[in-house]
């Protein structure tokens, strides 16, 4: 009786809150060519310096070199009314809003010297007598980002290069302490992605997986992938030491993942998932993307074969 009452009330409560239709919010299944991640090396750089951008270009048949990726830089930030990290002008590739730079994969791009003005804490210079402009707002890690536009096979993506900008509006000694203590972001490092039996945890031969079986996946990374860094508490004028938050995204060309995403607890160096292999034989691809919340990325590709 309690069970029946529970079901009825649960139903009533769900109904009272509105009903959400069945719609697939997951983006983990790769069914067409897509960029899944972009790694910038280094992931944080000062204006005027260069970084090498490598896209993880996935297709249902595996990773592509993606030599046709067109890269450009956004020239101006989004308006306050645009709840987006990218301006609509840059999304639509208005000529004045983007700067075309390169084609290919693994390209080197120079961050504009005005990036900390346009996208950072400095704000745009004003004519004498004009009111000061409001600088761009930082993210939760205190970071500012130059949007990088990628167009590949008619699919639009954006990457974000973290800008190493000087602190603004803080006392000189605090600014000096910040410069001395701050370590620019480094990309996290994935160590391995392993496949094991779901029940016994025994290592599996990924070239001979049983159709329909459930496979335990484990991704591991280096302990120093989650770096410590300093930020400035602008209300208290003090330095704060924080540790990066890592999160992991999984993508696959077939089968069913138990989870698409994992927010990694502090101190963790691995994350587990499960994959329900499809019944049809073939080679399937699994991509694991490790993010840190300052814009660093690493990724790995694993092929899974069902004979």
């Amino acid at each position, binding site marked *: 009786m309690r069970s029946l*009452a529970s079901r009825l009330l649960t139903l009533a409560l769900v109904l009272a809150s509105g009903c959400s239709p069945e719609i697939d*919010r997951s983006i983990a299944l790769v069914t067409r060519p897509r960029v899944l991640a972009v790694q910038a090396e280094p992931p944080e750089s000062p204006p005027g310096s260069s970084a090498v951008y490598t*896209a993880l270009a996935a297709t249902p048949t595996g990773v592509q070199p993606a030599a046709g990726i067109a890269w450009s830089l956004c020239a101006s930030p989004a308006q306050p*009314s645009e709840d987006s990290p990218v*301006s609509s002008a840059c999304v639509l590739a208005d000529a004045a809003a983007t700067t075309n730079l390169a084609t290919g994969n693994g390209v080197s791009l120079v961050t504009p010297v005005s990036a900390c003005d346009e996208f950072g804490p400095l704000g745009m210079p004003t004519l004498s007598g004009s009111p000061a402009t*409001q600088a761009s707002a930082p993210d939760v890690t205190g970071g500012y980002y130059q949007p990088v536009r990628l167009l590949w096979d008619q699919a639009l993506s954006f990457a974000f290069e973290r800008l190493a900008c000087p602190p603004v*509006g803080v006392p000189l000694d605090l600014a000096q302490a910040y410069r001395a203590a701050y370590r620019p972001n480094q990309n996290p490092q994935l160590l391995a992605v392993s496949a094991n039996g779901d029940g016994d945890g025994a290592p599996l031969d990924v070239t001979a997986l049983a159709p329909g079986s459930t496979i335990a996946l484990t991704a591991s990374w280096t302990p120093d992938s989650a770096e410590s860094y300093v930020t400035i508490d602008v209300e208290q004028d003090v330095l704060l030491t924080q540790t990066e938050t890592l999160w992991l995204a999984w993508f696959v060309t077939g089968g069913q993942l138990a989870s698409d995403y994992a927010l990694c607890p502090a101190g963790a160096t691995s994350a587990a998932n499960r994959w329900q292999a499809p019944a049809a034989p073939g080679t399937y691809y699994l991509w694991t993307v490790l993010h840190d919340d300052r814009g660093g990325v690493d990724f790995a590709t694993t092929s899974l074969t069902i004979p």
Partner: protein
Amino acid sequence: MGAVAVASFATGLCLAQVASAPPPSSFETVVTAPPAPDGASSVGAAGANDVAGAAGDLGRALENAPGVARMAPASGGLVLWGSTPEESRVLLDGVEIPALFHFGGWRTVVPSAALRDASVLPGAFAASFGRASGGIVDVHSADADAQAHHAQVQADLLDASAGASGPLGSQGNYLGAARFGYLNYLQSAVTSAESRALVPMPAYRDGLVKTTFDLDQGRRLTLEVFAASDRSQLALAPDSPTDALIYTNTRSFWRALAHFRQTDEAGTTDVLVFAGTDRAQLDEQLGLVPVALHSETVVMGTRIMHGLALSGQWLEIGLDGLVGVWSIAEHGSLTLPPREGDETIFGAPPGGATGSDNWHPVLGEIAPYALADLHWGRFALRPGVRVADALVSSDRTLPPTGLTPPVGFSRTIWTVEPRLAMGLAATPWLALDAAAGVHHQLPDATDLSPVFGSPSLGESRAEDAVLSAAMQRSGLALATAAFVRELTDLPARNPNPQPALAQELVSGGQGRSYGAQLAIRRDAAPTGLGGQLSYTLSRSLRRAPGESDWRLFDYDQTHVLAAVLGYRARRWFAGARLRYATGMPRTPVVGAYYDSSAGEYRPILGAQNSIRLPAFVELDLRAERSWQLRSLRLTMSLDVLDATDHENAEEIIYSGDYSHHAYVTGLPLLAALGLRLEI
């Protein structure tokens, strides 16, 4: 049968008229407002019981009034003549309160047992009201019976309430009621932790205590305290990095008031003083982006009025003052919570930009006013003027920069608000009216942040005009009105990609609403068939600063129809309500791009508010049966919401890559049983 009654034109006199009404014989009071053609509507406590779907709630019954758009799900107020709930004011016994409804929009913030009537004044209201560029929702508590004690308990699926009233000494009376929402406790008792994490059930409670003393020589003193609190909590298992993880929203307020009235040959004098506090806390964690908005407010105010009847003419002068001392702290996303005009897509991740600020604004206004209600034969002239001196101050003009002492500001804004109405009793059964007025509204204190808003925001301005007619023949009352509203200096997001410092918001937004409304009512008192048909045809537009093109208002609804029908016999009642409303505007998604840093697709938007949700259609039913057992009266009611199980779309939800969409639908068929015991 009193679904929603067209109300008195002389809205400025509401306070006086209501307070001087004779005490009712029980909790239930039927408001029999004279038909008047100014677009205003009112509903009484008994009338609310006769509205299917309202479950006896006065505020919910007001949704059926002409000029009122259908509420968005879970919104906290009414949309009147193209104005947001935040642009309208809610008054309880003359005292401003922060919201009309509890979270979820199911209940008014005052126990139904303690309410007598509520009126909605969509615009062009009299000079005694101000501080609203939208409309006024004017709610009045019940008057206790000075002759006998009464008690009432009531329970249904949502909550339980109890109330009592009666004489207090030889010259006084008392009224008290309290309500306790327990849906969240029922949920905890019988559902799993998983379902509790997924389904946000608002927890609410409220109460009102009032004593009135009839002093000698026509003097009356009322002391009253009321309070309400809300809490809503949600925790989602994330499917993506930017899904909501945590959502906690709490709100509470209380007010204490003293109202002195003296009535004699020299006229009527009212002195109302009140004080209270508001507290609101919103905490969200959307993936890695936090949202935290905490505010505490101390509110004090007064309303003083002296009215004089001279040879059938009414002259009134008054003073309306309010001051709020705020303490606000905000941290997190610059674009959340969203405001009218934001191009938000349901389920889309927010931009990553964040800020942090704490500021302490003081907003106040002292507004003397004068109005008159003059009659010459069949012609009436009702001029009025309100002169407001507003204070806007805060302790920050610029974003916080370390230990640098903040520099505050303080400025006063003088406004003159003329109001004029004219009436003609063309025939004994036909009245024609015209009214116009200018209204101003102070900026919202939460918009005065130099990080999230702008300290330089000024007052927004509304100009309303209404032409109307009312007729009453053979028990049938008809009121129709055509209205237009122009809004200027509305706060809006700064269109500049790199706005001037502390200018995240600017005062350049504009609005325009126009339309016509119709209400036809037939009363069933005390028994028989009664009902009301309300229809509003309107268009509401907004324009961002610097834009040349108008867009649809976020809540624009071209057609809003409510048909309420009921049959009351001696012991039972059966009624139905049919509602139709044009779907609210939404911004289409025309594509998507992949944000490789967030690991999410983000939508590419088409023209703002250029598509609509499907139309809303709902049929609600209500049946009620009462039994008299000596001095006890037991009433059992059954409300069936959405009796046809029509799936009404309340929101568009998209697939993760925005290639497909579906609709989130609202309440399907839901039955709620209620019991009420009265002594």
